[in-house]
């Protein structure tokens, strides 16, 4: 074993023992503790848990790489703004009201506010969104294990599946909340240490957010020399696609079931607001550092003068870090012009460039953060710590998502539709079976990922944006949104986005890729269109269908104010008559 493998193993074992210990200590048996941690988690802790839940393999492993390498550099800002800006929507438009409403799950809100049809479509949406998202995490876990344990990607994913299953099933939400606080701590330390270290060695400035500036202007120059667009401008990229992608990611953030459900773990409306603030604060620490890491890493790789760089290096004298990643097939060079030297100029690329092509180099975006410490020549313990951080990010998110799936299946399908007399234990069992099923599906797509981690995840966001965000916001802010309106909007928006995604993304194997058939909009950004469709259909249909009952309108009115109110209390206690709330002919 190499030094790096030893240190990785040390950090992974240490941190995992900590998580499992915490999960075991706070394990739960009833449904309430399983899904919402009994409502008693302080706001900063809840914020850190949301942050860990939220910052997945996509944020930790993939983000810096996709910003710096997937395009010229600037275009990737869509991911940075999208994944943070959505929290503003969440905090201002959703979190306080959903907390006041006080139900367990997103389909619960949709079903109670609208009708059973809308609930059912929402359940399907929640399950599809979550599985897509978990698949992204599994792919991330696979990359970490394959590189640092020296196993192949399949085994890496399999190991990840077993671990995720073990503690998502064991813990439940309460266990997960405190475990995620620990995971946030691990992942942010693991992310910031290399950022600060590289900034000091590369620029002489300790704070990466400041050192980053001069590197960007150097990258502009180097990329121009190599024949690429400047790092800092839109160049030949599509401003429209960047705009749409940002919209899809922002609204998707605000519509993600596993994040929304988190606000129910807050003690009350006020705590829900503070949880959102803490969450974004914790998230922003990573998000203002990620673009710096990406830029440092790209600079180190493509700068002709860097010690561990690849620009102009002989094909048979590549640096160690390159060889390690090449062994697992995540970076490669084809000497197109056969001059024995790696040529990174745009003109040196083969006629049919692969994804991640950069001159003669093909780099998988997902390795950038994990490889950065090695490229910068940081010591082995730092590399091991970063690997442990990446796993923390992937696992914390996967377990949160699996809980969203299991609550959708156990609560919204099994309990509500199949067996309303099910005991709490049976519901928890149904939830656990759902988790196992979801892991198998996600594991399959983790082994056969249709795209880079961040892109798989971006698609999940598009689905969330088009399905849930519009009908929840309208449900709160426009009392006259009708059940038929919401169900139609949900079906139209989500249906369009889902069909677009499965017809344009290669799902597995070598199936041919269809061209993006709707105005050339990439699958990652199509959620913005689905969102728009959902809004328009919901509003138009609502104008022409029977209005919600006065009682429903009064209930929505009450949701808008914090504090104890009569109708919301009665509704939560199950004392509001369904027929009176939803009108005649409900069900």
């Amino acid at each position: 074993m190499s030094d790096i493998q030893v240190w990785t193993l040390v950090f992974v074992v240490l941190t995992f023992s900590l998580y499992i210990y915490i999960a075991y200590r706070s394990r739960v048996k009833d449904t309430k503790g399983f899904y919402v941690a009994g409502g008693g988690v302080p706001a900063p802790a809840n914020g850190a848990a949301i942050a860990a839940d939220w910052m997945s393999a996509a944020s930790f492993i993939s983000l810096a790489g996709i910003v710096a390498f997937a395009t010229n550099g600037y275009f990737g800002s869509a991911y940075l703004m999208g994944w943070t800006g959505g929290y503003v929507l969440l905090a201002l438009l959703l979190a306080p009201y959903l907390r006041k409403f006080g139900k367990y799950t997103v389909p619960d809100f949709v079903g109670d506010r609208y009708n059973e049809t809308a609930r059912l479509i929402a359940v399907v949406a929640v399950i599809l969104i979550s599985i897509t998202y978990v698949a992204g995490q599994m792919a991330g876990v696979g990359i970490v294990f394959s590189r640092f344990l020296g196993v192949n990607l399949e085994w890496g994913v399999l190991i990840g599946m077993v671990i995720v299953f073990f503690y998502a099933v064991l813990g439940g939400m309460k266990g997960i909340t405190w475990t995620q606080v620990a995971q946030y701590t691990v992942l942010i330390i693991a992310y910031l240490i290399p950022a600060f270290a590289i900034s000091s060695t590369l620029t002489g400035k300790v704070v990466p957010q400041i050192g980053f500036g001069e590197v960007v202007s150097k990258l502009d120059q180097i990329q121009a020399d190599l024949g690429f667009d400047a790092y800092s401008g839109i160049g030949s990229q599509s401003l429209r696609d960047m705009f749409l992608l940002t919209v899809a990611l922002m609204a998707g953030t605000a519509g993600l079931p596993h994040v929304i459900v988190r606000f129910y773990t807050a003690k009350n409306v006020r705590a829900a607001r503070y949880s959102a603030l803490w969450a974004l604060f914790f998230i922003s620490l990573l998000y203002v550092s990620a673009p710096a890491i990406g830029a440092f890493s790209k600079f180190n790789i493509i700068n002709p003068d860097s010690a561990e760089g690849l620009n102009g290096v002989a094909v048979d004298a590549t640096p160690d870090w390159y060889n390690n990643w090449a062994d697992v097939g995540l970076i490669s060079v084809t000497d197109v012009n056969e001059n024995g030297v790696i040529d990174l100029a745009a003109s040196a690329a083969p006629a049919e460039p692969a994804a991640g092509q950069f001159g003669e180099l093909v780099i998988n975006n997902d390795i950038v953060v994990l490889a950065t410490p090695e490229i910068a020549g940081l010591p082995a313990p730092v590399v091991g710590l970063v690997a442990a951080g990446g796993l923390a990010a992937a696992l914390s998110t996967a377990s949160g998502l699996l809980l969203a799936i299991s609550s959708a299946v156990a609560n919204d399908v099994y309990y509500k539709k199949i067996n309303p007399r099910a005991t709490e234990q049976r519901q928890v069992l149904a939830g656990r079976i759902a988790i196992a099923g979801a892991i198998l599906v996600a594991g399959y797509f983790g082994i056969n990922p249709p795209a880079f981690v961040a892109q798989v995840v971006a698609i999940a966001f598009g689905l969330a944006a088009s399905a849930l965000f519009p009908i929840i916001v309208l449900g709160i802010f426009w009392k006259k949104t009708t059940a038929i309106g919401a169900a139609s909007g949900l079906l139209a928006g989500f249906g369009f986005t889902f069909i677009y995604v499965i017809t344009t993304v290669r799902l597995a194997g070598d199936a041919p890729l269809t061209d993006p058939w709707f105005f050339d909009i990439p699958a990652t950004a199509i959620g913005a269109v689905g969102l728009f469709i959902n809004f328009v259909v919901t509003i138009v249909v609502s104008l022409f269908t029977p209005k919600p009952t006065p009682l429903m309108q009064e209930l929505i009115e009450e949701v808008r104010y914090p504090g104890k109110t009569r109708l919301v209390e009665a509704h939560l206690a199950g004392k509001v008559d369904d027929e009176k709330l939803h009108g005649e002919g409900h069900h």
Partner: protein
Amino acid sequence: MDDAARKAYWRSNVRMVIGLLVIWAIVSYGAGILFADALNEAVPDFLGFPLGFWFAQQGSIITFVVLIAIYVFYMDRLDKKYGITEYEEEVRHS
């Protein structure tokens, strides 16, 4: 709260939310995307960055945190003004 107080509370809330979302949109979609190239040219050296690029990768994120902070503190004051001191505690199964 009586009906008039409720209306006033909600109006203050919605007005604040709209104001904050306008800033949110100007900073991200405006400075970070639509006018980024123009800002890059106008201010090529803001803390070492072209300004539009800085907004897209740093400034917008920092602004988002500040916006939520303003909202949270404003709502605390609003709650107090309308005498909301007791918050509900319950979360239930349907």
